[in-house]
């Protein structure tokens, strides 16, 4: 059957007919091949117009219908329905041509308009015969709704939907609902208090059984389509469980203070906090950032921020307990730790890092160890025995942690006393033996058996220990062997290795120390040996080191202390031979070096300078260039692999050696390192041993090391405080004895030093709160939880942000104390704010202190709004709240307070707004018509605001005590993310784009997702609430309809052609295409596809097509346009 086309053109009153000669177009169409009837009509969209189409279809037995009228956005559905009523498949039969928006409205003359209309009509007539029948698909609608954002818009929308009996998920990022409105004090123009009208809504969303409130939560991803969305919500760890009663005892105990976001930094809150007293839910939350860099850096993982904070608040025993959770030797390591943590301390961004290691020592020194209570330990059976070789830091640490777990460790050491290198390698003036003793005693009290004078080796091999009943062995024998210089006469009398020298002295053995002593090396042993030699009576002590000072591995403070004591350091010197005289040392021949290229260690390699030989006269030489592992203890034991460096090979995470049940850690594994590394190794080995004994996988479920860099910001105006200086014995009083050189920090020093901590992690996990909580609601181990919810519709009500005006430097915000933003002023005025509702000036020195009421105030409108440099739009609310502030100032600070409003235009457009304007003016508020251009501050903090009063053509300078900047409302910084997540659009101004500014103000291009409130554009509370109710109505309309019709003009991928390149997957903005791996082709999910055509345009094989926009149809249309 040949096609019979009906053509209908609309006059649209005169909208079309005033330019397009409609009758002429109709006459032209009538001549077109296949056109059976061609009609024009005044209003084709009217009922008679539609009847006309239906009648003509029947009269002329039409198969196709082309209507030329307005944009298809307006009436395509109208005419489709008419065609359907006439018994045609509307997608096959009907095509609409736009001769209004594309024709009459955009052309200049009648001739042009008519010609264009004819051309596009022709294109339509050509196209229509190529259309195929399509049928829309239908899906059921989930009646539940997700509301994103718990501000007034979100709450209002949620309550409206809840009223219908459907379920609402209300997701709010902050710990409380309320949003900006609840931060405000009064609301214009009625001046009712925001809390009075806002808290009932908050309470309602908290209590309504149909509202599932999720605070501290964020939407992670959205999939699905209208009526059938799947949303993943990330419930951030709050660290406080729902049985919290909101009593606030925890916050009283919390030692960490942070700026209160709710009060826009005008006052502080604790790390465990509630935003404001009426918060919903009334449930505290812990502000926990990533663990501080010091904690992340400490090899032992000590909660440094925690114990430092506890020291600051004077809780020394708690501080010590916190340290001892990770490290059993706080007093010893507090003295000798090289403190890698200090290098990462963020305080140095402001001035200098904290003196962390000495604070640790302070905590240990402040406690009486003999009465230190033991933790409650659940003892394991006696058979759970572990043997540990070596009573050095690694061995002690492993024993300590095992004992705390209830195991029964036994330490074997060949020395007469425990402590290993801490006792025998470190001189007493650095680490008095008593300190070590008390810590070892404590470890013993925990139940650790230390057997001294025992040699494990050939006689009593490691392997045999298992036969003795030990179920695991930890090798922590250290690296006690010195490395030789390998130079001439190295074994002459008067040459003694540094490690031996220290060892002998610590064993109280008689060692003859020369008068002129040369120490070779730049490490801690070299420094210790040099200072020992001095104390042993040497008159001249010199250190030679082959690289430069910056490469010296010794602790810097020790190098300085040595030099203070008169020890000379010769840098860039390499010894080449020991000179002897009668078999005894007489001197050291050396070469001078210069620094060459960096070597593997990253340090610049010393390169000898030819002919630079010289001799240092001396009678004793102490080489201290390094140590190595002695493998004697492994004699008689098979199956333990060694590395090429001579250390025991073990897994770097589990410390498991190649022999099951045998673990190794400390210097024996790493080679010579420092004590804190050894303690860390002991700690980790204990974990492994426990797992081994429990039969668990060693590498799994180990406590991970904290990472991340999301730390609390460092305040810009942080006052510098000098880093504590460790008091030391004067040189004269120390070089002839073994009194401890470093005297320890005084209590005042320590607490001041601790107060310098910038609390990188916010919550310091000191857990003081846990002890205070009667409900037992606090759980520091809580983790983020992801939850998937299914909803049929979504309301995005994510709100806005007030602009930070600091970038508008002419107003000095952030620089001048008494220049406030609107939100700051709201908080000042609010009863729960920093001043309990009094409007006071800020103290010039302390931004958190407020002094007296201002006598004069300037309120500057349009800050960042209506400004090409910031936001071109008007923020719509500033005029009114500017007036409100003026009124509040007059009301609260007295009627004689001078108030100036600098405005560009007053936009008081709402109900009661103009009346409010008049009322405020009558109160004597000065309205200056002109944007203030600049603010300057004098020495007394008086602010001069300069602006032109354009109404009197006069430049006005007013001196005021306070300025309030009415800042722009701007889109949230993460609006782009939200846009992508929900598949909605963003307008030029950065706010979410509604589908139509007048007819679809709450809809988005994605069906089923609606907008409400400030996220769509600046608006005040009444408008926000109205919009929220509108969005709720849209959602309810969807759910009461029960099902949705998805237009059939969507993409499909021809499975026969698709080659599976998957190019389309990345292009699809709606994630509507999935790859079918089995078939090797891409498949369109017809429910999600919007028919945008991205895939079809890009598909290299031509497999992706859009139904109703096929090549045939489009080419036919183009042919029509180009005909003639």
């Amino acid at each position, binding site marked *: 059957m040949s096609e019979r086309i009906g053509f209908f053109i609309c006059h649209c009153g005169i909208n079309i007919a005033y330019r397009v000669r409609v009758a002429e177009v109709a006459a032209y169409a009538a001549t077109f091949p296949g056109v059976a009837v061609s009609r024009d009509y005044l209003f084709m969209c009217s009922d008679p117009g539609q009847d006309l189409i239906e009648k003509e279809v029947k009269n002329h037995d039409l198969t196709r219908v082309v209507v030329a009228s307005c944009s298809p956005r307006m009436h395509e559905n109208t005419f489709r329905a008419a065609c359907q009523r006439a018994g045609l498949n509307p997608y096959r039969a009907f095509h609409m041509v736009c001769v209004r928006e594309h024709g009459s409205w955009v052309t200049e003359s009648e001739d042009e308009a008519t010609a264009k209309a004819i051309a596009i009509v022709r294109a339509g007539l050509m196209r229509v015969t190529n259309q195929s029948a399509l049928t829309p698909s239908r899906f059921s609608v989930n009646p539940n709704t997700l509301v994103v954002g718990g501000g007034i818009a979100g709450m209002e929308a949620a309550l409206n939907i809840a009223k219908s009996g459907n379920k609402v998920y209300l997701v709010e990022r902050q710990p409380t609902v309320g949003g900006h409105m609840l931060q405000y004090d009064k609301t214009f123009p009625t001046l009712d208090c925001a809390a009075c009208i806002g808290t009932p809504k908050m309470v309602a969303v908290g209590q309504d059984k149909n509202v599932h409130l999720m605070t501290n939560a964020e939407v992670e991803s959205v999939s699905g389509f209208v009526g059938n969305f799947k949303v993943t919500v990330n419930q951030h760890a709050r660290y406080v469980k729902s049985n919290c009663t909101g009593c606030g005892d925890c916050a009283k105990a919390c030692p960490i203070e942070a700026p209160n976001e709710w009060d826009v930094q005008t006052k502080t809150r604790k790390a465990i906090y509630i935003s404001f007293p009426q918060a919903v839910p009334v449930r505290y939350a812990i502000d926990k950032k990533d663990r501080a860099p010091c904690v992340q850096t400490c090899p032992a993982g000590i909660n440094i921020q925690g114990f430092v904070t506890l020291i600051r608040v004077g809780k020394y025993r708690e501080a010590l307990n916190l340290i001892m959770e990770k490290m059993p030797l706080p007093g010893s390591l507090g003295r000798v730790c090289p403190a890698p943590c200090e290098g990462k301390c963020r305080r140095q961004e402001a001035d200098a890092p904290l003196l962390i290691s000495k604070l640790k020592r302070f905590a240990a020194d402040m406690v009486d160890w003999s009465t230190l209570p033991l933790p409650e330990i659940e003892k394991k059976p006696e058979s759970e025995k572990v043997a540990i070789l070596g009573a050095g830091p690694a061995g002690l640490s492993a024993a300590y942690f095992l004992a705390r777990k209830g195991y029964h460790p036994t330490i074997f050491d060949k020395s007469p006393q425990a402590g290993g290198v801490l006792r025998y390698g470190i001189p007493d003036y650095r680490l008095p033996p008593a300190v070590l003793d008390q810590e070892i005693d404590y470890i013993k009290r925990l139940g650790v058996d230390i057997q001294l004078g025992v040699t494990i080796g050939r006689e009593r091999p490691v392997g045999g220990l298992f036969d003795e009943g030990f179920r695991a062995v930890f090798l922590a024998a250290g690296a006690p062997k010195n490395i030789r210089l390998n130079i001439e006469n190295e074994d002459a009398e008067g040459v003694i290795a540094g490690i031996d020298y220290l060892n002998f002295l610590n064993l109280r053995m008689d060692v003859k120390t020369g008068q002129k002593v040369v120490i070779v090396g730049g490490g801690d042993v070299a420094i210790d040996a040099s200072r020992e030699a001095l104390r042993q009576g040497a008159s001249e002590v010199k250190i030679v080191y082959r690289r430069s000072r910056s490469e010296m591995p010794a602790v810097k403070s020790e190098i300085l202390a040595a030099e203070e004591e008169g020890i000379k350091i010769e840098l860039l010197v390499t010894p080449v031979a020991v000179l002897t005289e009668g078999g005894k040392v007489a001197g050291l021949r050396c070469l001078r070096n210069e620094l060459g290229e960096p070597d593997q260690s990253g340090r610049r390699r010393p390169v000898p300078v030819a002919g630079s030989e010289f001799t240092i006269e001396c009678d004793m030489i102490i080489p201290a260039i390094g140590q190595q592992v002695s493998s004697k203890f492994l004699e008689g034991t098979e199956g333990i692999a060694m590395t090429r460096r001579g250390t025991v090979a073990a897994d770097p995470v589990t410390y498991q050696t190649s022999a099951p049940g045998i673990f190794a850690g400390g210097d024996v594994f790493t080679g010579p390192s420092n004590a804190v590394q050894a303690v860390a190794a002991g700690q980790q080995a204990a974990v492994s041993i426990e797992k081994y004994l429990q039969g668990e996988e060693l590498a799994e479920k180990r406590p991970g090391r904290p990472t991340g860099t999301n730390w609390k910001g460092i305040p810009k105006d942080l006052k510098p405080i000098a880093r504590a200086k460790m008091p030391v014995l004067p040189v004269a009083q120390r070089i002839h004895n073994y009194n401890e050189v470093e005297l320890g920090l005084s209590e005042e020093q320590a607490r001041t030093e601790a107060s310098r901590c910038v609390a990188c992690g916010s919550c310091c996990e000191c857990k003081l709160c846990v002890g205070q909580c009667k409900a037992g609601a606090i759980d520091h181990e809580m983790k983020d939880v992801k939850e998937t919810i299914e909803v049929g519709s979504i309301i995005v009500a994510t709100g806005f942000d007030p602009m930070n005006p600091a970038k508008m430097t002419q107003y000095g915000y952030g620089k001048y104390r008494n220049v406030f933003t609107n939100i700051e002023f709201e908080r000042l005025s609010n009863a729960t704010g920093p001043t309990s509702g009094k409007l006071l000036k800020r103290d010039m020195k302390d931004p958190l202190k407020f002094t007296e009421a201002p006598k004069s105030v300037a309120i500057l409108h349009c800050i960042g709004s209506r400004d090409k440099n910031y936001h071109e739009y008007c923020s719509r609310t500033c005029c009114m709240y500017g007036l409100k502030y003026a009124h509040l100032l007059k009301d609260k600070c007295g009627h004689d307070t001078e108030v100036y409003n600098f405005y*560009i235009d007053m936009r008081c457009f709402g109900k009661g707004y103009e009346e409010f304007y008049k009322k405020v003016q009558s109160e004597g*508020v000065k309205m200056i018509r002109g944007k203030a251009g600049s603010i300057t501050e004098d020495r007394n903090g008086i602010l001069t605001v300069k602006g032109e009063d354009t109404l009197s053509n006069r430049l006005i300078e007013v001196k005021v005590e306070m300025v309030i900047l009415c800042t722009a409302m701007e889109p949230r910084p993460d609006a782009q993310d939200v846009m992508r997540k929900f598949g909605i659009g963003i307008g030029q101004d950065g706010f979410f784009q509604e589908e139509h500014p007048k007819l679809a103000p709450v809809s988005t291009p994605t069906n089923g997702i609606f907008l409400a409130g400030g996220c769509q554009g600046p608006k005040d509370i009444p408008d926000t609430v109205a919009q929220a109710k509108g969005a709720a109505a849209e959602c309810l309309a969807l759910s009461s309809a029960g099902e949705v019709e998805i237009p059939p003009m969507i993409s499909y991928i021809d499975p026969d052609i698709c080659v599976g390149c998957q190019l389309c997957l990345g292009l699809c903005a709606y994630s509507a295409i999935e790859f079918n791996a089995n078939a090797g082709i891409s498949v369109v999910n017809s429910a999600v596809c919007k028919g945008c055509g991205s895939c079809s345009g890009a598909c290299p094989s031509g497999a992706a097509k859009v139904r109703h926009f096929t090549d045939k149809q489009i080419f036919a249309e183009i042919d029509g346009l180009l005909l003639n």
Partner: protein
Amino acid sequence: MIPNAQVRICKGKIVKKNNINPDLYGEVERLGARDMEACMQCGNCASACPLSTGENTFPRKIYRYLQLGLKDKLLESPEPWLCYYCGECNIDCPRGAEPAETMMAARRWLTTEYDWTGLARRFYLSEKWEFGALGAVSLFVILLFTFFHGPVITDRVAVNSFAPVMWVEIGDLTMAAILSFFLLSNAFRMYRLVMNGTKVPLHLYVTEGRTFVQHFLTQRRWGQCGEDKSRWLKHLVLVSGYLTMMTLVIVFIRWFQVDDSSWHFSAIFGYYATAVLLIVTVEMFRSRIEKQEKIHRFSHPSDWLFLTLLFFTTLTGIIMHLVRLIGWPMGTYVIYVIHLAIAVPMLVVEVPFGKWSHLFYRPLAVFLTTVKEKAQRKSEVDPAVLLKETGETFQSCMQCGACAGICPQGEVVSYSPRKIIRNIAMGTSSNVSVDDASWTCATCNSCVEQCPRGIGILDLIKSVRRQIVDAGNLPGYFKAPVKSLKDNANPWGGQKASRLDWVGNAKLPEYAREHEYCLFTCCATAFDTSAGKSNQTAGIAFLRLLEHAGVSYGTLGNRESCCGDMADKIGTAGLASDLAAKNTEMFLEAGVSKILTTSPHCLNSFRKNYEGLKNIAAVHSTELLDQLVREGRIKPANRLDLKVTYHDPCYLGRHLSIYDAPRRILKSIPGVTLFEMQNDRERSFCCGGGGGGPWKDSSGGESLGEIRIREALDTGAGIIATACPYCMRTLNESIAKLGVANRIKVCDVAELLLRSVDPSDK
């Protein structure tokens, strides 16, 4: 299309009517103005400007004038000359406009407007004209030398023979005189425009003279413009070079133009000036090309031309000097002519008509602005007193300007109640902006009726005047009436004893308690004998009607004092309350129950200002006559065949809402056709007689009364009826001034009624 500005001169001031000139922006745009459409008048530019001060704010104001086409305002603005283009204004401009460039364009435009010859406009707008003029002058110079040069000596350089220095000097001076004439005459026009009738004590011009000289020589103001002082220094150096050269050429030409290489100390100055001119012009070229400084981002052709001419003048000067030193006679003469053929047209075209004219306009603008500022004094008005006296409503003024829009005075003078309120509210009042301005008001109450915020503007004006009077600054023209009020209880200078003389032989019985009405005579009826005693005629007509109708009435005659309306309105509050007290006592003593008066002013006072007369009714003559006619006690019988229009007196109408009674009376007269004027009833156009009107200076210009008469004439009426002695007087005066006595006459309503009742009184 909005009609072009009509500019009228009134009282020595330019008065603008409908002063929108839609072509203005286009004109200035062609000279480089930018972004008029962008500006939203926020004023940020003005507050960013380091030079914008007090009332001389810019650039916003200039944008405003351009946006609206307020040509007259732009003409009287000195501000473009006060701007030195640092460009600070565009940094924070919320609309991203280029105000400084527009200021530059405004200067160009003003230059074309100051120039009465119209040449500047042609030069600025047409390159043909500009180059044509330069070429013509150049050609003239060349021809002059071609035909009138001296002997050409070729064996040595002898410029003074080729161009005898005496003649050159004469030429120099002649040119200087002509150029000065044009420049000064243009500057005089600028002076007239900028001052625009502002009254400034003469001594200020003398004492501030140094300002002119100082700014002329140092351009000190530029030193305060922006952060970068180098622009100013560069310019200062250039000026020094230019002035030095001018002085050498005009005053010291005898020593400057020499043949030999003999040395004269002036040579040092010559070298200095030459070096400066060369270096600075090259430097200015460089920065214009590189566009690094804001001022140089946009260059108008005139900027380039100016520099080019200056550069080539200097260059040819140097070449000429060198060639002379080398001793090449012919070369010297040719270069000499070329030098002059560039220098002379440059001076002739640029100094009075081009960019160079700024050397006079800028210091003049600074001078005039300073003089104007110095002439201003602080206002006598204390906002606190005002607040106490008039309440807080005036604070709620939203500056809509409806008051100024409706004020009849706006038709004849520049007057805006809005501005007065603004200045008081902002605490920026001056003697000119508030004190002097307040006397313009005729208290017609139009603004009060119109005010959307219901502000008692009239009370405000009264309070302002009261404060001025209290400060001892009662305007001179009110001294006589005030003295008369004190001495004789009337403002007209009449004797109290002769208060009833106007009655003549008509009947006016003495008031007795049995009388229903006590007739109170307005002082104007009693003593104002202007316009052929029209007020007396009207008064007697009323008496006749009372008699005719048999109304029971009497008068208290000589015991009456002025009602005090005028004293109240001109701010002599004490006097007004004294008068009120006297009259109140008189009425109460006499036991009066109803007061009858012919004057709306008296009626308004009795009804509103006399606290003591709360229980005594006051009735206007038209109200009574209307009642009598309606009751049939007066029967208008005679046909008059008159075309009449009725003028609502402000005090009867807007102040007391009596609109219908007089109209009913007129309509009751057979044969009277009543025509309404364009402005009737609530919109009645004030005759200007209220608030002390008759005593105010009325020299020059059109008066409100004249406008009203014209309106009346437009109706085609031959009679303008009214019901107020003040209106009678003012309208009669205006008829006389307009010379239309043959076409229209003023009559009191009572007169017309009487004619209809009693033909013998025709």
